[in-house]
Every structure is written in C-alpha cells, then in structure tokens.
C-alpha cells in the first residue's frame, strides 16, 4: 500500500513538473519556434497569419500581449484591429494558453524592449520545396485514410478531416474540411500546421506522436493535389438511397435465409403443453 501511494505521489510530481515549468525557462525564440512559426514569419511575408516584422512598432505593447495570451477573447470582443485582421487572414488564431512570463519573453524576442533587435535577421524565408512526386501523393493519400499507419502511431487524418477526393470515402466531420486548405493557407502554412500543429486538440492528439518529415511531405503533396484537382473529383453522394438500399438488402437476405432454412426447428416440442399451463404472473 505504501509502495503504491509512493508511486502515485511520484507520478503526480512528474506530471506537475512537466511542460509548464520547462516552458517558463524557455527563451522567447524557443517559444516562437515551438508555437508561432507554423503560421507566422519574422519578416513581412504572409504565411497563415501576418508576418511579424515590426509588429511591436505597429501595435500597442499591451494589445500585443493581450492578443498573444488570449486571442480568442480579443477576437471575440469588438476590437476593430482584430476584426480587420480576421477579415484579411480568415483563420482565427487559437489560444495556446501562453503564460504571462512566456508572453513577456515573446514580446522581448519580437523587439518590444531589449534584445529583440535581431528578430528580423533570424527570420528565414520558407524553403522552396520541390513539388511532390507521384509516389509521395499516393503515400499521402494512403496516410490520410489510414491505409498506412503513421510511423509514430498518430491518429489518421480522416478520423477528423474530410477531403473531396475520389479515393477518400467518408472522412471525418469533427474538424475542418481540407479540400481547399492548400489554396487558403499555402504550402508552407499547411506544412507547418501538419509538422507542429497549433491547434490544442491536434496538439494533444499528436503529443509524442509527431509525424516524420516524409509523412508531412507526402500529406502536403496529397493535399496540394486534392486542391488542384478538386474540380475533377466528384465522389458520389448516395444520400437516402444508400440507407434504403441497405434496408432492402437486409430484407432480401433475411427472406433468403428463412427460405433456405425453412425446415429448421422452431420452438419447443413441448410448446402445446406449455401453452395450456397456468402462469403465476
């Protein structure tokens, strides 16, 4: 018993000593690489969200801090800057649960008071990626549907996402429909989101199950192809007919069974005796 409670105590300790306390010690740059780089560059280039060069001069420091910590609140309020940004960039920034200390570190890194001067220089333009090969697209198609498992055991894409594509039958509806994601977010944005997901649910789903570079490239290739060829792909939607056909098939099958096994034993040989017996209830 004592051993068990010690184990439990250790487990709780190790849990509480997990990510948050580690993050507190991270520098602004590390936090940026971890959480922001998927959507933002450090120059003026647009990725998913706006490039962040000179953001600290464009915006009020307090506003930036508030937006970093609680983007959902700012976007939900009647803040005109936030509304304008959402209109321009379409994708609302998710809440990453960034703490006060982390926000300060990020602002410092972005040039909001001391030590952030180098921000512009560290920003690297996204690599120019070669277009995906045919094999990669096919691999991405299989990975998306789970025909091939992810190396690290992450859940398949179509558990939650759908893509209009002849090869994909019935994707999930829990998360965004991804047919046009490539034209909406662009190659680097898609790659960044798949590689290090900014969305809390996706983060949790792929915690310790990160996709490999080959898998990311394959999926991006597939999504790019799906986007480019969406007009050619028209998976049929059977609607109510599918349900009706299912019911009709069941009825036909049951009828066939009762015909084939019509001489089966039904009921008990003693049924006529039981039927005449008086029941207590």
């Amino acid at each position, binding site marked *: 018993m004592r051993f068990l409670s010690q184990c439990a105590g250790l487990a709780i300790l190790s849990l509480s000593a997990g990510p948050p306390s580690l993050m507190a010690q991270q520098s602004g740059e590390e936090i940026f690489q971890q959480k922001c780089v998927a959507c933002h560059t450090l120059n003026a280039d647009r990725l998913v969200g706006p490039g962040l060069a000179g953001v600290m001069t464009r915006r009020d420091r307090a506003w930036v801090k508030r937006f970093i910590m609680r983007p959902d609140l700012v976007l939900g309020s009647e803040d005109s800057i936030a509304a304008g940004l959402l209109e321009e960039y379409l994708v609302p920034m998710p809440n990453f649960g960034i703490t006060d200390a982390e926000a300060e570190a990020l602002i410092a890194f972005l040039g909001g008071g001391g030590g952030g001067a180098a921000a512009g220089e560290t920003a690297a333009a996204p690599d120019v990626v070669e277009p995906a090969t045919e094999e990669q697209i096919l691999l991405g198609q299989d990975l998306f549907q789970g025909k091939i498992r992810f190396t690290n055991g992450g859940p398949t894409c179509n558990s939650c996402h759908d893509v209009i594509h002849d090869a994909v039958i019935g994707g999930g509806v829990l998360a965004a429909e991804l047919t046009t994601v490539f034209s909406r977010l662009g190659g680097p944005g898609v790659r960044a989101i798949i590689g290090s997901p900014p969305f809390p649910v996706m983060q949790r789903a792929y915690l310790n199950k990160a996709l490999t570079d080959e898998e990311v490239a394959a999926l991006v290739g597939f999504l790019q192809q799906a986007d480019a060829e969406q007009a050619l792909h028209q998976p049929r939607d059977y609607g109510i007919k599918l349900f009706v056909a299912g019911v009709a098939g069941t009825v036909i099958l049951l009828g066939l069974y009762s015909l084939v*096994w019509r*001489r*089966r*034993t039904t*009921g*008990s*040989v*003693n*049924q*006529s*005796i*039981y039927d005449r*017996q008086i*029941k*207590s*209830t």
Partner: protein
Amino acid sequence: MDIRSQISMVFHLDKCIGCHTCSIACKNIWTDRKGAEYMWWNNVETKPGTGYPGKWENQDIYKGGWEVTDDGIQLKGAGKPKSLTNIFHNPHMPVIDDYYEPFTYKYLDLIESPAGDDQPTARPISMITGEPMDIKMGPNWDDDLSGSPDYARNDPNLEKLSPAEKEAMFQLERMAFFYLPRICNHCLNPACVASCPSGAIYKRGEDGIVLINQEVCRGWRMCVTACPYKKTYYNWSTGKSEKCILCYPRLEAGEAPACMHSCVGRIRYLGVLLYDADQIESVASAPETDVVNRQLDMILDPFDPDVIASAKSNGVADSTIDAAQKSPAYKFVKEWNLALPLHPEFRTLPMLFYVPPLLPVMASVTKVDNKEQSEKMHPVGKYWPDSWLYDTSTEELFGTIDEARFPLQYMANLFSAGDTAQVGDRLKKLMAVRLHRRQVTVGDVSEKMVKSALDDTGLTPQSADDIYYLTSLAHFNDRFVIPAAHREQAIEMMEFAGDVKGSTGFGFKTGTAKRGA
C-alpha cells in the same frame, strides 16, 4: 479381423423399479455444475411416454442418427456438407424447453422471512436466470403417466401401431408401463464422433468409451443434433458439449460406474465384449431389421483361440480377454441372446443392451358373478360392484406373450427396428426361464410343459438356471466384470517411471515440528 474391446452394458428392464437412484448418483457426481443443471447423463423414462428431451426418438424433429443414402450411410442432420453450411446456426438444435428449465427453491425464505400473517413459501427459482419462475417441465415429468394424452399417447414408438393396438394399450384394465433407464450407449458407429467439426469426440481405443475432449471442443453442437439418443449436451456456461463418460475414472480404479453401483434393482451389468471393427460400416449399412442380428454377429466368442490370437495381436491385454470371458454382457447378449440394443434403426450400433421387459402382462378379463362375495361383506365396508375377473393365469404356453398388454409391435419398435420376431424370441426365453423356475420351486407346472418351453426357446435347464442366477442372485463381482485399465502402461508410454523412483515416500521431511510452549 480387427478385434477391439468394448466395455458394454446390459440393463435388465424387468428388474427396474423406476426409483431414479441412478440419475441422482450421476447428477451428484457429474452434472451438479453451472451450465450442466439441465443435463441428465443418466435418466429414467416411463414408457410409453415422450421421454427426455421430449419426443427424442422422433428423428423427423431432431434429425439424429444415420440414414441410408445412395452413397452408403450418411448422418441425418450433420456431416461435412450439412455442418459446413449450417455451422453458424445449427437448424435442428433442441432448445432448453425441449429438455426443461432447471430450477431450485428459495429455501432460505422459509427460515429468514420476517414474521407475518402467512406461512413463508420457498418460491421456485430458475437455475439459469436466477429469477423466480413457473416450473413447466422436469426431466421425468411424465413419470408413471401411462395413458396420458400429452405424454404416453405422444410416444413416437406408437407410430407404426394400428389405432386398435394403441387403444388396447391404454384401456383402463390393460394399461401398463415400464421404465427405460438411459445413458450414453457408447456406440460402435457413433454419430456424435462423426459429426464433430473440431474432431473433439473420440472413442477410446482400450475400452470403447466415447469421450468429448473439453480442450478441443469448440461448441459447434453438431453432436447434440447428431446423437439420436440426445445424450450429448451443451453446457451453456463453459460453451462446450458434455456427455456420459461411463465414469471412466471409476472404471480405471476398478469400480463400477456410479449409476450401476447405486442401482437399487441391480438391473445393470457391465463387462467387456470383443468385436470385429472391420464390419462396422457394412453392419451399419445393413437393411433395417438385419442391423441387430448383424451387430450381434460382430461380437465374437472370447473363448475362440483365433479370436484370442487376433485380439492379442491387436494389443488387447490378457486381462481384458479374461474379463471378456467372464463378461455378464457376453452372456446376456451372445450366449443366451436375451438382450437387444435400443433403437438399432438409428444405425449407431449402440453397445448398451436391454433385456426387454416381460411385464406382468398375462391377464384375461372375464365376467363373473361376485354376488356371493359381496354379500359376505359389511355394507359399510368393501362393496365391489365390479363383476370382472382379472385373471393372470393361462393354459397356453406362450399365448400371453402374443396377447401381452403391450403389443409386441411396441416392444419391437423400441428394440428391434419393428421386427416382432426378434423381441418375441427374447420374451419367450424369459417366459421359459420363469416356467422352469416355477417348476423347480413350486412344482405346479407340468414337467412336460416346461421341457417343451425350454426346447422351443433353445434353452437347457442348466442355461435357464444360469440366467436365473445372473438375473436374481448375482453378486457385485458377477454383475460388474471390469478389466484392469493398465494405466501404468499408459503412463510409461508418456514418461520414464524410473525418473521418480526413490523420490517419493518416507524420508523427505524438511524439518522437525517445534514442540513445547
């Protein structure tokens, strides 16, 4: 010749009193378990009656046993093509209501109920669901119910009888019944073995006991359908099928099976028969009324030197041959030709034989004048207005057998596939033995009459006395001649017994117990 040994049984139906002690002994030892409550590996039925499970002899319902087709004999309700196409739902399975829903009573309510205005009662509880239930049926629900419309008159063996014969059976003065105790027949051509898709059922080489390997059984239940005697049962708790194992652990220790050991009427005999396994297929395929005689021909004389030599070359132990020579089964079945298998037309070649019941069948009813008798009695006392005399004496030798209260045809349907001559033979022998013993002990039967009776049936006074002895006076060791099982040889085949020599017994104590305070 392929001589094998079979532990065979003979049940003497004239001696069965229908006490169900055998059933209870078996139940207490083997089927007093969860999932087995409804099973009665041994059960006793009243005949005429529908038995357990209901109408089990009607293979139009249950599809058990073998049938003759163009390609020889085939299983009626199982076999490779039928089993394969029906493997996920066997369409001829008996349901629990064909047997009965097992029940017990909530006895604790009798002593634990709070004080109240009414006596507490012990409600019946289902042993399957644990819920209160209405008892609808039992394993011997038609016990002693001859003439009942639901049971006796639905006996499948009445089918080939004429309406007049049926009515005669159930006339009030003529009504009779007898008991038919049943266990697994440990057949030579077992349908259960043939039907098993998993190969879990096998007939033991050394003694012919048919067993289900519980580790191989997959619960397909084809054996339940295939056995025409409905003597394999499905255990709903373990998901495996079970059947009578002829108490083989007891047999291997030299003890009689529990049902036989406990038999109050001492109706049961057990001994070895040697038979020629090469003939099994041809005998099982023989025309219906020939099956019995051909089956008896398969059973060989254990005193014949050729048979002994052949048996030895087949690995039959000397002790087994010796047991076969002393076997009461051999005497009843072959030497005296008194016993018949139950329903040979199912073609499984059952190795449990029945001496058919003679019953108190001899009676004629004549009108007499009872006036004188009645006048002697006090009016308040017995007054007997009936003027019919129920007379059990007869002048004619075997006349009563043909005029038995049970038509011979009924007995023939049970024991000889409808051939009345074969059952008639056995009954006449029983009758001749009775006449002979009557002459010996009472002497009111003429010697000439007894002699002609014995000659008619091919018996001698000596053999009649032997039959009388084994029927009425036999000791335990006469009734059960159990061959040594030679388990030591079986063990030595698997492991070297010398390995454990010197490592068991005294002298291995690990320490001395501490004494004192």
